[in-house]
């Protein structure tokens, strides 16, 4: 398989971001700006902020900008709600040329007034976009004045698209969340084993699965950031004894900030795959150092493992020896996937992320075998080249990567935010194995 008519595969300047593992790690170039013209798969600051905040179910999510930014983010995520549905709407001030010339502050104020009147929300989040950063609308002042008028919280999200990367958007979102959390009197945590769970967006009910595990262990889940959360639940976050962080890329910053301000310790966990799920539950139980919790935790792991292990082993029989390529958003997901593939007998031969950090790439290089290609901020030409060269049987990725895999005749696993099935916990581990099996073992490949 080779490309027709195409030029080179790797632009010179990109070479430092691509590395074939041999022996020890070499310090991959990452956390830098994308190189112009290389067809990066990365998104923008606004995207990062919206991903993190959008699951807040009873907030008005108002995009202050041109229509496109709101259009492309209307109800595209699979975050589920047990209550309000307002978060599934996308609001925009639809800035036009005259607003660019004369400024958009008045329009924004009117938009907020209209929306508060119509929906009576407890919270309005106003997302800044590229042009707002340029024309210099004072979002902070407009939001402050509107909050005063309406007696509710109205917060700006500093998410001008060009002002950094998706990771900077995560940070902007975490800053907003910090402003939402109410300081607690005397800083005493709630009684009992009470934790917050950071970095789960309740895709297809994933946070509900984890919440159920914790309940069965005698641990109360206080706030999930931000899956199925609401204004009033977020307020109470300062009362937890511990923050557990799943998606460290998006929420690590919040964990650190909450430790600094409220003295809440945090630990990184992962509920992707059987091994990680079991380890994470044990880690959380261990924190409380309580025999009953530990006992319940072990019972839960034993029971759930008994249920899912035979199923996963069944899939493994057909999958053993296959080769996977991974290209996902963040390092946390990539690391978890390596381990999850190992559970079903699959080796990772190519792995990359859009926004992985140095320490995450070090971990990745520690986990994969020699000969695996590791790459940061890859483009379609590189993905094509290295998947074919490495003999991958399947790719894990997002919506943009899917058609590329299919055109190359490769199986594909969706690991994006609009999926309709959970991949977390023991139930998710089975779903993952089944999805890999469904795609790798499909009869369709025989006809190519």
């Amino acid at each position, binding site marked *: 398989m080779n490309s027709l008519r195409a*030029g080179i595969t790797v632009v010179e300047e990109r070479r430092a971001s691509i590395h074939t593992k041999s022996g020890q790690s070499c310090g991959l170039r990452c956390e830098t700006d994308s190189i112009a013209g290389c067809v990066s798969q990365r998104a923008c600051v606004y995207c990062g902020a919206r991903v993190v905040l959008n699951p807040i179910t009873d907030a008005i999510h108002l995009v202050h900008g041109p229509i496109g930014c709101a259009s492309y983010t*209307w109800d595209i995520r699979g975050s589920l709600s047990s209550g309000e549905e307002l978060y599934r709407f996308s609001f925009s001030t*639809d800035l036009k040329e005259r607003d660019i010339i004369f400024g958009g502050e008045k329009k924004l104020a009117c938009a907020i007034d209209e929306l508060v009147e119509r929906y009576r929300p407890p919270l309005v989040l106003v997302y800044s976009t*590229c042009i707002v950063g340029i024309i210099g609308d004072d979002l902070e002042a407009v939001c402050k004045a509107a909050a005063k008028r309406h007696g509710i919280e109205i917060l700006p999200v500093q998410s001008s*698209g060009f002002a950094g990367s998706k990771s900077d958007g995560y940070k902007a979102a975490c800053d907003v969340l910090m402003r939402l959390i109410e300081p607690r009197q005397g800083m005493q945590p709630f009684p009992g084993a009470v934790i917050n769970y950071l970095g789960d967006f309740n895709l297809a009910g994933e946070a509900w699965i984890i919440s159920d595990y914790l309940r069965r262990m005698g641990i109360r889940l206080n706030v999930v950031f931000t899956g199925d959360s609401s204004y009033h639940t977020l307020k109470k976050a300062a009362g937890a004894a511990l923050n557990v962080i799943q998606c460290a890329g998006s929420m690590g910053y919040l964990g650190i900030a909450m430790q600094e301000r409220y003295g809440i310790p945090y630990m990184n966990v992962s509920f992707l795959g059987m091994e990680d799920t079991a380890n994470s539950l044990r880690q959380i139980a261990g924190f409380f150092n309580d025999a009953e919790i530990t006992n319940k935790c072990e019972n839960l792991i034993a029971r759930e493992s008994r249920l899912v292990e035979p199923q996963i082993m069944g899939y493994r029989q057909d999958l053993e020896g296959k080769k996977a390529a991974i290209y996902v958003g963040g390092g946390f997901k990539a690391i978890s996937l390596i381990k999850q593939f190992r559970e079903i007998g699959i080796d990772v031969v190519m792995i990359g992320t859009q926004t992985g950090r140095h320490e995450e790439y070090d971990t990745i290089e520690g986990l994969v075998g020699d000969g695996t290609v590791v790459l940061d901020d890859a483009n379609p030409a590189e993905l094509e080249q290295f998947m074919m060269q490495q003999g991958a049987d399947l790719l894990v990725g997002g919506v943009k990567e899917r058609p590329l895999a299919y055109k190359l005749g490769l199986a594909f696993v969706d690991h994006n935010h609009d999926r309709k099935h959970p991949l977390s916990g023991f139930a998710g581990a089975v779903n993952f194995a089944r999805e890999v099996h469904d795609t790798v073992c499909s009869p369709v490949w025989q006809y190519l």
Partner: protein
Amino acid sequence: MVDRDNDNFRNVIENPCPMCMPLGAILPFKGIENAMVIIHGSQGCATYMRRHIAEHYNEPIDVASSSISERGAIYGGEDNLKKGLDNLIQLYNPGIIGILTTCLAETIGEDVERISHDYLNERGMAEYPLVPVPTPGYGLSHSEGYFLALKRIIGRLARPAPAHKKINVITPNLSPADLREIKRILTLMGAEYALCPDLSDTLDSPYSKTYSRIPAGGTPLADIAVMPGAPATIQFANTLEESISPGHYLESTFGVPLFNLPVPIGLEACDIFLDVLHQVTGNQIPDSLLIERGRLLDAMIDSHKYNAQGRSVIFGEPDLVYALTRTCFENGIKPMVVATGSRNKNLHRLLTGPNMHWPVDACFLDEADYASIRIHAKEKGANIAIGSSEGRYLTEREDIPLVRIGFPIHDRVGGQRLLSAGYTGTTMLLDRITNALLEDQQRHYRLNMYLSYFSGDLEMR
């Protein structure tokens, strides 16, 4: 209060209908042979648009970005754009490149025309077709972005040419299946043609052992170059304003006669298309097409009583909305709400003109959002929605069944394969509409009749 620009002025849009101008401008480039596009702006713009387009077509959509960062926003993005072009050419080796601006590039005042010119001179590529298109996201909608880009492509490539026989066929944003059908009809009519843009293979490419970073197909550049020598231009964009009309450009600049026709969906629109082809080529309409026409008529008769129950809400790009509304008229389906996210001066005038069957109580929405479409659809008692997959919102909230057509279709597969043009395509579309009405009726009629007429004592059941 902010000044009111027009009757539709609102401070806030709720669930947007239109997409942004550069997204629309990407599409025609995807239908030109060996073309690539670079978006001059923030990295996220290209990514969001690629995702939005890829999910509809299920095809890789490679679009480069000049990836302007904070530094570029302050000091200008010229270096980024030039470097982006260098890298893009190395990776894709395209024969033509579109440069689309964004909110950011326009607001920081990038002179893309000048940068393009300098770039070509500096690289010694003065003849290379680099096509800058000003497409600020705060400008017009994706529909206008599409035609403006197309006009710029033709404007860059077309040169005075000796008369030849190839008809220029300018198409709006239709499915690749529709474009293939239009090509089939042209061939059956014995017409030689240059379809532009031709997305029929590029955005619905067959599986092949060899992967091509730029998919095969698209309008050849040589065909566009000689468009001024064509006997006529047929453009399926009868609601389009002249200022961004490629057909009007060819007529006013090179004197190519323009037939600006409705999209060939619906019996009358297909008749008009074939009449014009007969006129331009002098060829008779072959029996095979007349048989297809007869089958469509037969289907219209078979379904007319079911269709008479239809009260439709139609939304999408203006030219498609026009054709769909007329198709509803022809079949006795009452269009109760007709909406487009674009701002279009002609659509309302054309639909309410003489010989149209515009219901007196119907509602027309320009620059619409889905919140307003929903309110009016409910108020007018619409029982069928016809438009893009965003209309699933009407199904979920108001239980109005949706017949998917147009762009985007994100929640079903096969948007690129949906056939609705020509007599055969219209027959298939009509069946989809009628069947949606039937399914809805069958789902509800027992309960409806019971609620309407049953008066016995519930205890007796």
